[in-house]
Structure formats: C-alpha cells, structure tokens
C-alpha cells in the first residue's frame, strides 16, 4: 500500500469526484429540466428538437396555468388536508404509540404487529371502501373527508416512528411525574412530549410530505370543491399537448417549496426514513 503513496490517493479522490459529478447531473437533471421548461414560452416546451435551456425566458406558462386549474383553491385544499391530517395523525398517533410502548402485554405486542401490517396496505386496494365510508358519512368532496382519511392512513407510520422514540424515554420519568400528582394526560404533554420533540418533528414532517403528495385518496374522495393540487395536476394529462407548458409551471410551483423545505429539514427526514431499521 505504501508504495503507491499520495498519487494513488489523489487519483482515487479525482475518480470519486468524477463519479459524484456524474450522479449529481443524473439526479438533478430531471427536476432541473422541469424547472427550466416552466420558464420557456409555451411553444418551446414542446418544440422539436427540444431545448434544455430556455431560448427565451418567459412567465407565460405561469400566467396560463390559471386558465386550466383553480390554483388558489386547490392549493388551499392541499394545505388544509396536509396540515389538518398531520395534526390529527401526530397527536392521536403519538398517544397510541405511547400506550403501546408502556403496556408491556401480549396484546400490545400483537397490536404493534397489526399497526405494522396496516402500514403496508396498498392504498389502491382500500381507496374504494374508504370512499364508501366517506359517502356514507355524507362527507364526499369535503376537506374534512381528506383530513380524516389521510390522518387514518398515515397514522400507522406515525405510531411506528414514535414507538422507536418512546422506547428510549425512561419509565422513571412518567413515574416521577405521577408521584408529583400530575394526571396522565398532563404527564404526557408536559413531561413525555418535550423530551420526544425530535421524534414528533420527524413524524410530523414525514406525514406532512406524504399528505401533501397524496394523489389517490384525493382522486377518490373529492371532485370539484375539495380537489387538491395533485389531482388538478393530473388533469393536464387528459388534455392536448398544448397544455404541457402550464403543466410544467404548475408542477414546479407545487413541488419547489417542498424541496426547499426538505433540504432544510433533512435531518428529520433521514430519521423518519430509517426509523425502525437503523439504530441511531
């Protein structure tokens, strides 16, 4: 090893950087292409041959997209559905997770297994029964329907993430609070939650992204009033090529804030993804 010395290390470094650059280009290219396309004039998006960089910068696509979809309303619906469902899923999910962790019975072990099973149910399979329940409750095409359904479908994930975090909270902590005369619910919110904030943040950010990106449930449960942005986006598909320009603008507008957030909140996203699989 010594006989190659520094040169070998330097060549290795250069190779690593070259491969790295290749991957960066590969992974950034699609999204960059979408972003750049959105700032082309509408005709250039479908020009033959295609261009990568806009020949002419234009915000035409952004002005045009409001002719195809109701932007304000569908963004509002997406925001309500995402934040509302995240609040419920994290609040109730973490309470459930805490109960599962603290009651060391065979039943709770079985329930944990059931939650894990529910986490992997394909949404496409249960979307229609959920649709029936929502219709039965008279909630079709309401934002409440989306909030309820998304809270429920994301709850197993919240429970899964929070179980991992609550396991590292020592029982002596709740015992001490109980001795001081605090009620269980006060103990949970004043003592347990503050030391599990990192887990709560992970679960919240994760469910927020999932709910924001949801397509299938919104497709099934809404039509005109509570339709979210993802369903609006999909409507560009049925139309002619001419709408692809505004489609790129809408896609970019919808996903760009999320990506910026994701970069800043990376730590929590990594925690959420690796929950239950990697010991921190």
């Amino acid at each position: 090893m010594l006989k190659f010395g520094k040169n070998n290390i330097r060549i290795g470094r250069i190779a690593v950087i070259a491969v790295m650059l290749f991957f960066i280009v590969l992974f950034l290219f699609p999204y960059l292409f979408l972003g750049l396309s959105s700032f082309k004039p509408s005709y250039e998006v479908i020009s033959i041959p295609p261009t990568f960089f806009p020949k002419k910068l234009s915000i035409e696509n952004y002005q045009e997209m409001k002719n195809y979809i109701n932007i304000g309303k569908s963004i509002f619906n997406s925001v309500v559905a995402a934040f509302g469902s995240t609040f419920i899923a994290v609040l109730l999910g973490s309470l459930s997770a805490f109960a599962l962790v603290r009651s060391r019975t065979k039943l709770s072990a079985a329930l944990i297994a059931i939650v894990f099973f529910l986490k992997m149910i394909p949404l496409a399979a249960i979307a229609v029964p959920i649709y029936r329940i929502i219709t039965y409750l008279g909630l079709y095409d309401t934002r409440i329907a989306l909030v309820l359904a998304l809270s429920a479908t994301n709850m197993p994930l919240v429970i899964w993430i929070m179980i991992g975090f609550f396991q590292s909270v020592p029982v002596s902590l709740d015992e001490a609070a109980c001795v001081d005369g605090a009620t269980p619910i006060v103990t949970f919110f004043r003592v347990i939650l503050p030391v599990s904030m990192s887990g709560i943040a992970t679960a919240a950010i994760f469910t927020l992204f999932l709910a924001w990106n949801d397509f299938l449930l919104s497709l099934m449960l809404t039509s005109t009033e509570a339709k979210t942005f993802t369903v609006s986006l999909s409507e560009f598909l049925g139309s002619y090529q001419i709408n692809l320009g505004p489609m790129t603008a809408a896609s970019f507008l919808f996903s760009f804030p999320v990506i910026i957030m994701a970069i800043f909140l990376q730590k929590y996203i990594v925690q959420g993804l690796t929950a239950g699989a990697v010991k921190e």
Partner: protein
Amino acid sequence: MMNKKVLLMFFLPGALFMLLFLVVPIFQMIINSFFTYELGGVHEFVGFANYQRLFTSKAFLKPLINTAIYVAVAVSAELVLGMILALLFNNPFPGNTIIRSFLLTPLMIAPIVAGLTWKLILNTQYGILNSLLVKIGLISNVNDIMWLADPKIALYSCCIADIWLTTPFMMLMLLAGLKGLDKNVLEAASIDGANAFQKFFQIKLPGILPVLLTAVSIRVVDAARTFDIVWVLTQGGPQNSSELLSITIYRTLVRYNEVGYASAIAIVFILLLLIFALIFMRDMWKPKRRNA
C-alpha cells in the same frame, strides 16, 4: 406508573381512526369478494367464484407478473445505485454534506410530479432524452425508442422514474448502515493489506446486511404498491403492458364497477404482501430496543 385504563384511553382515539378507515375497509373487501355486484345494487353470493376467475384470468396474471418485474427491476437498480452512492458518501471529501443534500431532492417530490417530469423527458417526439441519444449517436432517429408507447419497454420506462425517485432512500439507509460499522475492524483490515474489494465483500457487506435487507424489504412493499407514477406515465398501457396490480384494482373498480372481483384481487394482493412481510421482515415486527 400509568394503569391499564389510562393506557387504553391513550390508545383508543388513534385506534378508532385506523379501525374506521383501514380495518373496516379490509373486512368490507373480504365480504365483497364473495359477492358479485350489478348495477342497481343487486348482489349475489358467489362463494369463491371471484377467486376462481382471478387465478384463471390473464387479466390478473399479467399485472401480477408486471408487478413482480417492476419490483425486481426497480429495487435491484436502486440497490446497486444506492450502494455505489453510499460507498462514495462514506468517504470524507469537500462538499460531502452539500452534495448529499442535493442528491436527496427527488426524495420528497410527489410521485405524480415525478411521473409528469419523466413523461416530458421520455416523450418520443419532443422528449429531451431521445434528442440527446440522437446527438451522441446511440440512435439515429427519435422514433427508434418509444419509451412509453412501445409495449415491450413501457414497463421498464416506468421503472426509470421510480429509480430516480427512490434511489436516495436506498442510499440513506445503506449510508446509515456503513456509518454504524466498527472503524477499528476496517482499519485493521487496511493494515493487513486488504484492498477495497476485499474490504467491501468481507467486512462492509456482511456488516450492513441487516440494514440492507430491511431497506430492500421496505422498498419491495412500496414498489409493489406503486400507483401514481405508472398512472401518470402510461395508465397501465399500451395494451396493459405496464399495468400493475394497483392499477388493475383501481380500474376494475372505477371503470368497470366490478366490486366483488376487484375486492378479490385486492385481498390476494394484500395476502401476497403479508406473506412476503412474514418471511422477510420478521425482525421488524417488533421494533428494535434502542438503548438510551
């Protein structure tokens, strides 16, 4: 110490949500799968007829095979790419963290946006990929490869979008595994003169195997459930060549309104996933105890 009654009160509200929107739908499906439904709400008990029809029908076997191919191609490509990236990022080099942040961007993009993006890139006429391939001389005409319109390759084209979207996940998991390896062992191997390949196959790979298997299992289940990406790219076409089970279920229900048959497909699908989970994810059933 909290008593059982209190814990039950903690557990119930969340459990009710899951009961109403996850457990009840599953039971409803099980019941539905034994009936045929006709317009006007008439339904008839048919026993296992829906299941019989399913196992003898090409309309089920084809998407089942498609799903298996989709999972196998997407997940193995993600594993290989993710491993290369994880090994690279495990070395300290200037800009490591920043570059990693950028590579993670696809992770939080909505699958539907990923689908739309790739639909634009893979288009035969005005898609940039074919135009690039012509430029570097790999194909002579943009019509040579019809990514989404050729029944032979549409399914694999859909995999591309999936690979782009979730390779970062695989990389993160494997990287977390690599970071958890004992550095002393690796150093000792270096001193003993082990080369990079020996270190990878004899130390790193066995060391991260549990994490790797978990990551693969999670991805297998997720890839099998894919709906949005394929729906946007091809809607399962052309000629059902890229139809996955989740699309078959959706279509059977929404387009053809065959509740009983679609429920039977869904039940078999869920059972297959469950069997997979029981075999490969046993260790995950009980979350690992973390020592704090």
